[in-house]
C-alpha cells in the first residue's frame, strides 16, 4: 500500500530546513508558501527518507478569493505519498513558481493550468496555452467564467 506520510512530521522537517515555508500541515495535506516552493520541492525530492521522485497529479482549484495549486508526490522507493499545496492570490496575475526543474512531469500540467485557470508558473520553459488556441479570451475553468 502507498502510505500517506505524516504531514505534521514532514512539515516540521521542512520548517527546520527552510524557515517560514510551511503555512499549515493539517491532516492529509501540507500547505507551503508559494515563495519557497522551489526550495521545498528540491528538499522533498533529495532528502533521504522522503525522496519524492515521482510527481503524479498537478492541478489547481479556484476558490474565488485564492487559487489552490495541488501536487501529489509519490516516492517510488519508499512507496509513500504526499499531497502538497500552495496558494496563489489575485485574479489578474496569480503567480506560482514552476517545479519543472525538479519534476519534468509538471511540464504539460502547468501549461494546462495556465491555459484553463490563468495561473502563471514562473520559470516554466515554454508557458503557452495547451488545449485552447492562442488568442482565446479568458480562462474557462475559473468559477466566474461564463
Amino acid at each position, binding site marked *: 500500500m502507498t502510505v500517506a506520510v505524516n504531514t505534521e512530521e514532514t512539515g516540521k522537517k521542512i520548517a527546520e530546513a527552510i524557515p517560514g515555508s510551511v503555512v499549515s500541515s493539517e491532516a492529509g495535506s501540507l500547505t507551503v508558501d508559494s515563495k519557497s516552493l522551489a526550495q521545498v520541492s528540491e528538499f522533498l525530492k533529495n532528502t533521504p527518507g522522503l525522496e519524492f*521522485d515521482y510527481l503524479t497529479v498537478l492541478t489547481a482549484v479556484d476558490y474565488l478569493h485564492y487559487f489552490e495549486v495541488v501536487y501529489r508526490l509519490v516516492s517510488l522507493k519508499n512507496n509513500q505519498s504526499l499531497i502538497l499545496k500552495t496558494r496563489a492570490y489575485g485574479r489578474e496575475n496569480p503567480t506560482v513558481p514552476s517545479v519543472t526543474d525538479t519534476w519534468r512531469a509538471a511540464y*504539460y500540467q502547468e501549461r494546462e493550468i495556465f491555459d484553463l485557470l490563468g495561473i502563471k508558473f514562473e520559470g516554466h520553459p515554454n508557458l503557452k496555452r495547451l488545449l485552447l488556441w492562442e488568442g482565446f479570451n479568458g480562462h474557462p475553468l475559473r468559477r466566474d467564467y461564463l
Partner: protein
Amino acid sequence: MPIKTEQFYLNVGPQHPSTHGVFRLRLSLDGEVVTDVEPIIGYLHRGIEKLAESRTYTQIIPLTDRLDYLASMTDNVAYCLAVEKLAGIKIPERAEYIRVIFSELMRISSHMMAVGFYLNDCGAFFTPVLYMWREREKIIDLFDMVCGQRLLYNYMRVGGVSQDVPDEFLPAIKKFVAEMPRYIGEYNQLIKQNEIFLARSKGVGILPKETAVNIGASGPVLRASGVKWDIRKMDPYSIYDRFDFEVPTGEAGDCYDRYWVRIQEMTQSLRIIEQAINQIPAKGPICSEVPQFFRPPPGETYGYIEAPKGNLGFYIVSDGSIAPYRLHIYPPTLINITALKDMMIGWKVADLIIIFGSMDVVLGEIDR
C-alpha cells in the same frame, strides 16, 4: 564547394494516419534526422472538466466514457472509485468482481489495439491489426452482452454496476479465457521473431529509467523502462490484493520492450480473470443503494487506478452540493508524451512514427 543546408520544418498531422487521432507534431529536421519536436494538442478538447461542474455525479459517468475511448470501462471504474472514496460508499462483493473482470478484459482489448496499430506503424499494413481485431471482437461481444454497447459502455455506477451479468455470460467468458492463450501464442509466432520488426524496434526510442520516473510516466511505458510500478500491486484498490499475478517489466526501455510488456500483461490479465471467475459469488446485490442525487460531504479526494495506458486519476473537490465543485482528470498518456522529445531527437522521420506508435496514445484522453 560547401553545400548550403538549412533547418527544415515539417508538420505531421493533425490529420495523419499514424498520429492515432488529431495530434500534430511540429518537427525540425536536418535532412531526415529529427532535431526538435513540438507536440501541439487540443484539437479534440471538449471541456469535460468544465462540463462536469454543471452535472450531477451520476451524469458525469457517460462523459468519462469519452476520455480514453478504447478503454471506456476503466475510465468508468476510475471515476466511480473516486466518487465512492469521496462519499464513503461501499460496494457489494459481486460488483467488485464484475468490475475487476471488465477492467482486465478492457486491458486486454486496449493492449491489442495498441500492439496492432503499433505493428501497423511499423509497416505491417493491417494484417496484425486484423488478427488482433478478431479476438477484440469477442471481448466486445462480452461487453455488448452486459450493457448493450460496444464502445462507450456507461456500465459502472457509483456504488456498483448498472445491471447484473446475464446467465450466458460466465460460460462465454470461460470459453474466451480458455481460448485466448493460444491466440497470444499465435501473435508471438507472427510478430516476436520477425526480423524486420526486431530491426525496427530494438534499441529504438530508448526511454531511460531516470527520465521515465522524472517525467512521471506510468503504465507499460514506465514498466518497459525497468521500473516495477503497478498500482494494482503497489497500492491495491478494489479487490486486487486477492489475486495472484506478476508485473512484467522491460530492461532497455525501447520500443520493443514496450510492445513485449503489453503482450505479457495480456497473459497476466487472463490469470486475474480466471481467478475472479472462480471466486465470484454466485448471487448477491450488484449495486448498493445510492440516491439519484446524492451530496458527498465537502472535501476533496484523489482516486486513481491502473488503467491500460497508465495511472488514471480523478481529483474531485466537493462543496456539498449535487455537482462537483471541481473535477480534474489526470490523463496518463498526456504525461507519457512529455518524453517524446527525449526519445525522438536524433532518429529519422520513419523511426519517429514507430516511437510515437509505441506510446499507445489516445487523443480523447489527452485533450479531454
